[in-house]
């Protein structure tokens, strides 16, 4: 129930956030994508918030999606399902932490 609801909420965050992300990256900066112009965009608190929200929503949505697919075919036992859940949570938290680390200079500036 909670996984289902969060999958819908993250879906809406992704729809709106991806639109902002793609328009900012490829329409305002078309033909000149570089470290410098991404760094410039990340000076703004708005784009940092969008990027961090996207990072969290995308990782959750992706890994919960993988979980839904896997549970349809494997991991029917409660004990193996718990192992899968643990692996997915650890991987997701690690990926989110790594993404935050890569954005850190702009988050703190």
């Amino acid at each position: 129930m909670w996984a289902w609801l969060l999958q819908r909420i993250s879906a809406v965050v992704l729809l709106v956030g991806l639109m902002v992300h793609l328009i900012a990256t490829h329409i305002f900066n078309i033909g000149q994508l570089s470290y410098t112009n991404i760094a410039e965009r990340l000076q703004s608190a708005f784009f940092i918030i969008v990027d961090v929200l996207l990072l969290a929503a995308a990782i959750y949505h992706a890994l919960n999606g993988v979980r839904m697919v896997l549970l349809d075919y494997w991991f029917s036992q409660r004990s193996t399902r718990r192992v899968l859940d643990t692996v997915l949570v650890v991987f997701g938290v690690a990926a989110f932490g790594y993404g935050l680390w890569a954005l850190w200079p702009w988050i703190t500036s």
Partner: protein
Amino acid sequence: MWAWILFRISGLILVAYLFVHIVIISQGELSGADTLDRLFEMFDSPLLVFLDFMLVAAVLYHGLNGVRVVLMDLGIGIRQHKAVFWSVMVVAAGLLAWFAVVAAPFVF
């Protein structure tokens, strides 16, 4: 049925892309600005622009079919689900065509 299978396949492609994307973009912080800029230049190659086209197709399909799924969960368009599906696919095709027009000079 086919809408659902394609939803899953596109979803799994996007999961793989997401983690590749995180690894690539974080190279700016991990390996420096020059490495990231060199990667961006590489992405202008015809093969990678073509893969980008496939990626955009997967994003549009998954995102717009997802809109239909969320609407149906809210009780909207359940009886007209086929019409809603084809309506969002027209939007997806239009946006994909726009991408193709912009991307074509990189491939041809």
